[in-house]
């Protein structure tokens, strides 16, 4: 099967890919604004996206192509534990509802474009601003690389060999992001999300019907895990309870610290837009839960895969006619373009506002900001492409895992300021540093696993390293702020006013 080019699938795939390419270039005229004259236009689409555009955009860049490949792959490999993505993407929304409208208001009032802008505005600390900006950029790069991995998995299944297709796809993406900015992924997200909904809803009806119903699907997966043993299974092994819930909570708190999700928040036109989206976005979570089940369907279909990332492409290839798998693969590949574009824009905004403007050219004009950001978005994408072409895929996976841990450490600096001014910049910086160092060291010494175990008394507790690092981060920030506050309350108050 692989090696043989699937011409029908390839044709359908190329048709949809060409369609979104045209849309990407046309997008610069959509809801028209002077794209090159102001970073608000290129980097935030003019800060005018209403409820539905924001729904498609955030849905399109939060639930990435990599998710569609990786979540079923994990569920296929280990069972219930892989489902932590479901509670994670549910509890994230009460958090978004409570916090993100406040963040939007601060950004809107002051013309902020990035998280680091907000932090600098609140604490007047260049060091803390730089810490938040660099964390965002570094955490985003491997995430972009993983979108390419997702795209590569489906292209390979269609029998196209070599690196050329993926390089071509990425150059096209880079060019229309350069010319249209955030408007391109916002417009393409409509097509991508509708295609993904069609694919997944079809799959969750048709596949179980072919395999004897959901009861049979779960039974087949249960049998596979019974053979496999260990901590796999259809329910959680008791040793994984805490790991499951801390991963869900930690991931939920980290999700909207990333530049690509925050870009979606800042680009919306009102705080109410974000509140309504907190109610409407869970529709995608339902979809994600169903996508995860593809991992069990692969057991029922008795697929033999050489790597778990092939589970989803192989399942479509095996159970559907060629034209439909081409459609599904196009949905996944386009699903990689939207987040990759928004991520590169988010990273470019950070570099422009919090590195270039802060350190290289403070007198930069609005048009100058837009052009620096456009060029940076190209550099970021070339970097991610080089990453996937020249380094093993495992590096991208490991770095993305560490990226989640790192981005979570910007939480106190960004979120606490919305509720209190008690914390000091130096304290937050110290907390950030300790969290990152401890988290990275712990994950590293456990062989780059997201979980660590501490033993209290007789029992060991296994938990998500990122959340442990965040707790440490907050404690250090609080203690340092308390000490600084006692030493120089008057000086601090004067510095602030």
């Amino acid at each position, binding site marked *: 099967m692989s090696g043989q080019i699937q011409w029908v699938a390839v044709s359908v795939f190329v048709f949809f890919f060409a369609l979104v390419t045209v849309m990407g270039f046309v997008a610069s005229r959509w809801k028209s604004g002077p794209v090159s004259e102001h970073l608000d236009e290129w980097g935030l689409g003019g800060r005018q996206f209403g409820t539905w555009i924001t729904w498609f955009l955030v849905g399109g860049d939060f639930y990435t192509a990599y998710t569609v490949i990786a979540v079923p792959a994990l569920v296929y490999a280990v069972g*219930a534990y892989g*489902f932590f993505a*479901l*509670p994670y993407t*549910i*509890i994230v*929304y*009460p958090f978004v*509802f*409570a916090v993100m409208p406040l963040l939007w*208001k601060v950004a809107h009032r002051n013309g902020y474009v990035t998280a680091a802008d907000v932090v600098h505005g609140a604490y007047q600390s260049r060091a803390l601003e730089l810490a938040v900006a660099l964390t965002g950029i570094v955490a985003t790069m491997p995430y972009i690389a993983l979108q390419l991995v997702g795209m590569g998995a489906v292209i390979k299944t269609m029998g196209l060999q070599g690196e050329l297709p993926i390089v071509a796809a990425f150059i096209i993406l880079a060019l229309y992001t350069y010319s249209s900015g955030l408007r391109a992924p916002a417009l393409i997200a409509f097509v991508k999300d509708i295609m993904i909904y069609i694919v997944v809803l079809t799959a969750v009806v048709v596949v*179980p019907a072919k395999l004897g*119903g*959901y*009861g*049979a*699907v*779960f039974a087949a997966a249960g049998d596979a895990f019974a053979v496999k043993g260990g901590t796999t299974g*259809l*329910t*959680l092994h008791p040793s994984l*309870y805490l790991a*499951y*819930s801390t991963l*869900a*909570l930690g991931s939920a708190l980290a999700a909207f610290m990333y530049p690509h999700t925050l870009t979606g928040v800042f680009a919306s*036109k*009102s*705080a*109410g837009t974000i*509140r*309504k989206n*907190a*109610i*409407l976005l*869970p529709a995608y*979570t*339902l979809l994600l*839960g169903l996508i995860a*089940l593809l991992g069990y369907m692969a057991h029922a279909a008795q697929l033999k895969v050489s790597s778990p990332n092939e589970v989803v492409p192989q399942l479509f290839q095996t159970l559907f006619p060629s034209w439909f798998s081409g459609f599904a693969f196009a949905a996944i590949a386009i699903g990689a373009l939207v987040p990759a574009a928004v991520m590169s824009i988010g990273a470019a905004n950070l570099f422009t506002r919090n590195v270039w403007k802060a350190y290289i050219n403070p007198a930069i004009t609005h048009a100058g900001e837009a052009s620096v950001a456009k060029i940076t978005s190209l550099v970021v994408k070339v970097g991610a492409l080089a990453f996937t072409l020249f380094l093993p895929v495992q590096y991208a996976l490991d770095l993305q895992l560490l990226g989640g841990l790192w981005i979570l450490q910007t939480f106190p600096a960004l979120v606490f300021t919305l509720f209190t001014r008690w914390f000091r910049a130096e304290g937050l910086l110290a907390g950030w540093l300790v969290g990152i160092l401890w988290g990275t060291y712990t994950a590293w010494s456990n062989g780059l696993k997201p979980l660590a175990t501490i033993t209290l008394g007789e029992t060991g507790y296994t938990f998500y390293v990122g959340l442990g690092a965040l707790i440490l981060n907050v404690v250090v920030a609080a203690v340092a702020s308390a000490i600084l506050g006692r030493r120089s309350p008057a000086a601090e108050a004067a510095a602030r006013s």
Partner: protein
Amino acid sequence: MIRLLLLVPFVGLLWVPFYNFMEPTLFGFPFFYWYQLAWVPISSLLIWLVYRSQPHDDEAN
């Protein structure tokens, strides 16, 4: 006070012993799966209840 409803999904989903069972199944789905899927619409509903109770300061546009 109604804002406390936003905490309910955290309790329902982060305490795993609540739902780590196979039975009862629903449409072939073990309890572990349909329980968590059911929290998707429940959470939306809870957030909507809080949304509805708030003054809509900036929703004119």
